[in-house]
């Protein structure tokens, strides 16, 4: 402690470590020149360049510098603080330097990678950025972090495969967990599905053990027909309210939150005769028909891939639909003799099972509900008529088949062996679904033959992408976590922190962060659960020393800061002055910029530091 305090009074002794990042920076910025320049800056006593500052030799170089040159400020000029600041801060701490005496300068994402064709100017910019960093570093002050206890209870939002897996993992680690599911039963999207690819086992049979384990686990409290109504607080100390239909609200205190609200399939309204002609269904609706064993007898089934995805409505590829379509194509061929008995024991006689109207109604009801949920009202839909036929042929119209994964290329080959036809189309010539009398038809352009062809079909299955839940936006606002442009949740870092949100204490897994199959969902869920358990297992978190500070000598007690704080983190104290509730403050700085008396500033982002850093940008290189 005494050591840390003395840093404040000491004259700054700054060490600058400039990273080549292999050739990522070194290839576009003259790093040695920049390092030489850094040595000329005020209070810089040591500057060097490393091939990789984040590698062990780079880090030990920092530790050594702190000891050898008695550095009391460290600057690393490399990539982005959003991914690497914690590493370098920890390195400084391990060498006895308060982590708030560390400054990050971004010369990769903000310099070398965006100025790849102008080395001279990029080098100049890198020098400027480091000068700015030095200006900031000189004014840094060591900070003490507040320790906050973590409530050892979790909440998982969503009771699908991801949510259940996450809840089970957390519960198995010995922490109580609330599992909040909006529907009347657990299982999520998988409840729609017939069988699953690779294993070819029934979907409901597959998840049954999982559901049973979740139901039986003493640490899991299941809330069905429920949603998260309100969330207040911060990592370790969230006060949540779970709203249940027809029951009283449940209040709970939780330490961490896992978001696993899943996805829906895209409804291709207006595409390929969907909702216009009978027997045009989505891939999921087809699965439901299979599952309910209410498929009509089909002679000719066409799958159309990439409906509404990859630029048609949504920009992305939904990944799993190729594999799902291939699985269903094989299912149809294999079970031709037993078409209606998909998943039934061999020997079921096809013709004896009639086309049940009930299932159709269910499908229609489902479409209605979905539309209702998207619009927030009840919608209406026309009836779908399913007609009978005799012999079977399966065609998969695709832009490309993406059978990613270890086994799936083999499944694709298997489908070809079973004479499933794969016909390629391009966006210039989209297949067309239309009616000729009573017959559903597909017109398509055969890319190999360069010919327009037509084909009668009994059923068209549209492979539509997974889309984010329509109410994901509400949850995103409730939890203050970001939602991407496509309606999926945005993780903290696409590569390095795939199941964390940027906000501490909240994690994400499953299809609500992007299309994924069950295997991937389970993997992500286990990952998210283990991430969520870390603070609970540790028992406390260190809150960043990044909060407002009120100067009572300047405060006039006008209360404007209290009005603008979105977290209620300011209040009036006995003396009538503004006072910061450190644990609730998130450090946005709104009060600081608002305060009419300029009495509030932020630790580690003081006005003086920001001004010095920004002003240094305008100075000329010496």
């Amino acid at each position, binding site marked *: 402690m005494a050591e840390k305090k003395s840093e404040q009074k000491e004259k700054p002794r700054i060490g600058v470590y400039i990273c080549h990042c292999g050739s990522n920076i070194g290839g576009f910025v003259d790093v040695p020149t920049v390092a030489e320049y850094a040595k000329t800056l005020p209070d810089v006593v040591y500057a060097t360049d490393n091939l990789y500052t984040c590698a062990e030799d780079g880090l030990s170089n920092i530790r050594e510098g702190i000891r050898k040159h008695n550095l009391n400020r460290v600057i690393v000029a490399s990539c982005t603080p959003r991914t690497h600041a914690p590493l370098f801060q920890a390195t400084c701490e391990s060498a006895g330097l308060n982590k708030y005496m560390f400054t990050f300068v971004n010369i990769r*994402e903000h310099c070398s990678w965006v100025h790849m*064709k102008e080395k001279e100017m990029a080098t100049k910019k890198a020098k400027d950025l480091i000068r700015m960093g030095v200006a900031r570093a000189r004014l840094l002050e060591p900070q003490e972090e507040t320790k906050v206890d973590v409530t050892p209870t979790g909440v998982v939002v969503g009771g699908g495969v991801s949510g259940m897996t996450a809840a089970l993992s957390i519960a198995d680690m010995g922490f109580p967990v609330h599992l909040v599911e909006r529907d009347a039963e657990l299982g999520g999207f998988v409840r729609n599905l017939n069988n699953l690819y690779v294993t070819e086992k029934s979907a409901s049979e597959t998840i049954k053990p999982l559901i049973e384990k979740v139901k039986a686990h003493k640490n899991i409290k299941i809330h069905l027909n429920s949603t998260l109504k309100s969330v207040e607080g911060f990592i370790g100390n969230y006060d949540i309210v779970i709203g249940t239909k027809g029951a009283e609200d449940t209040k709970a205190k939780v330490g961490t939150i896992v978001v696993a609200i899943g996805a829906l399939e895209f409804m291709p309204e207006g595409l390929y005769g969907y909702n216009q002609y009978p027997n045009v269904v989505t891939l999921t609706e087809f699965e439901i028909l299979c599952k309910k064993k209410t498929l009509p007898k089909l002679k000719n089934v066409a799958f159309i891939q990439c409906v509404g995805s990859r630029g048609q409505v949504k920009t992305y590829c939904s990944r799993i639909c190729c594999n799902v379509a291939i699985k269903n194509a094989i299912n149809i061929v294999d079970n031709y003799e037993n078409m209606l008995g998909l998943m039934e024991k061999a020997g079921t006689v096809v013709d004896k099972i009639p086309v049940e109207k009930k299932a159709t109604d269910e499908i229609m009801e489902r479409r209605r509900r979905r539309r209702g949920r998207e619009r927030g009202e009840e919608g209406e839909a026309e009836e779908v008529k399913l007609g009978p036929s005799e012999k079977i042929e399966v065609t998969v119209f695709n832009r490309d088949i993406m059978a990613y994964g270890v086994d799936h290329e083999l499944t694709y080959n298997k489908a070809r062996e079973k004479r499933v036809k794969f016909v390629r189309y391009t966006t210039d010539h989209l297949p067309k679904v239309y009616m000729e009398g009573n017959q559903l038809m597909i017109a398509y352009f055969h890319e190999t033959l360069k010919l327009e062809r037509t084909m009668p079909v009994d059923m068209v299955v549209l492979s539509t992408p997974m889309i984010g839940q329509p109410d994901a936006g509400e949850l995103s*606002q409730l939890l203050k976590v970001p939602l991407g442009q496509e309606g999926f949740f945005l993780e903290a870092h696409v590569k390095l922190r795939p199941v964390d949100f940027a906000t501490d204490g909240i994690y994400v897994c499953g299809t609500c962060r992007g299309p994924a199959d069950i295997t991937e969902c389970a993997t992500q869920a286990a990952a998210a659960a283990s991430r969520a358990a870390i603070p609970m297992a540790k028992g406390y978190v260190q809150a960043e020393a990044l909060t407002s500070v009120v100067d009572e000598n300047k405060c006039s007690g006008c209360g404007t800061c209290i009005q603008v704080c979105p977290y209620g983190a300011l209040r009036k104290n006995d003396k009538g002055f503004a006072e910061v509730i450190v644990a609730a403050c998130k450090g946005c700085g*709104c009060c*600081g910029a608002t*305060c009419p008396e300029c009495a509030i500033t932020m630790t580690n*982002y003081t006005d003086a530091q920001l*001004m010095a850093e920004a002003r240094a940008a*305008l100075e000329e290189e010496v």
Partner: protein
Amino acid sequence: MAEAQHAISEVKHDEKGGVWEPKLVGFLCNWCSYAGADLCGVSRYQYPTNIRSVRVMCSTRISPHLVLDLFKAGADGVLLGGCHLNDCHYITGNFHTEKRVRLMKKLLEDAGVDPTRLRLEWVSASEGEKFSKVVTEFTEQVRKLGPSKVKKDETLKAKVTAADDASVAFRLKALVGKEFNLETKGNVYNNLLNKVEFEKLIDAATLDEFERSLILVLAKGKPRSVKELGKIMEVPTDKVLRHIVVLRQKNLISMDHPEGFTPTYKTIEIGGEQ
């Protein structure tokens, strides 16, 4: 605006006689714009080298003083980047940013600096390409406006200094600070405020505060008459006098020696340079 037209015909050189390049400072919020700029880098979208960015946690951290100080120091342009409205990591932060930027632009305008030298953009963490477009566009826009003349033009410098001083005036900060809440939640009587009326009120207050600050800047260490001040400020003398009355009541300016029969006024300095 006049400044802009004048600048175009000029050959643009920097202080050392080299070819002038716009000096731009960016303030980017950690959660959206800074992340968007990161993604821009990861995706290798290229943009001009003129911008130097400072990371802040939220765009709402940027007080008008931080920005105006940069213009005072000769910045050619300042870019503020935040999350899209309703997407702010800190819920309502960027709504306050929007209000403050309006004040900053008004102050720049009053000081005779083209307000388009200040730009506010919402760039999300997933909009890497947008970030490169915004920076490219803004650089070109400032390039057309030409170099900042704050360092060469004494009157302009005084005006920008006055704008900076006005940006910390209690009245302006309190008004702008309460603006968002008054508009969305209403006042103590639960009345929602009329946005247009309130903006008019703020604009008038801004001009007043700017002119008063300008008087204080101009009369600092140099006693000046009302007529002289009016001429430099291009403000009618009766208005200058009214400001002086207010400033004298606040004990910020005092009467100095008369020049003939005309009184002069001098700024009262407390504790020297701040």
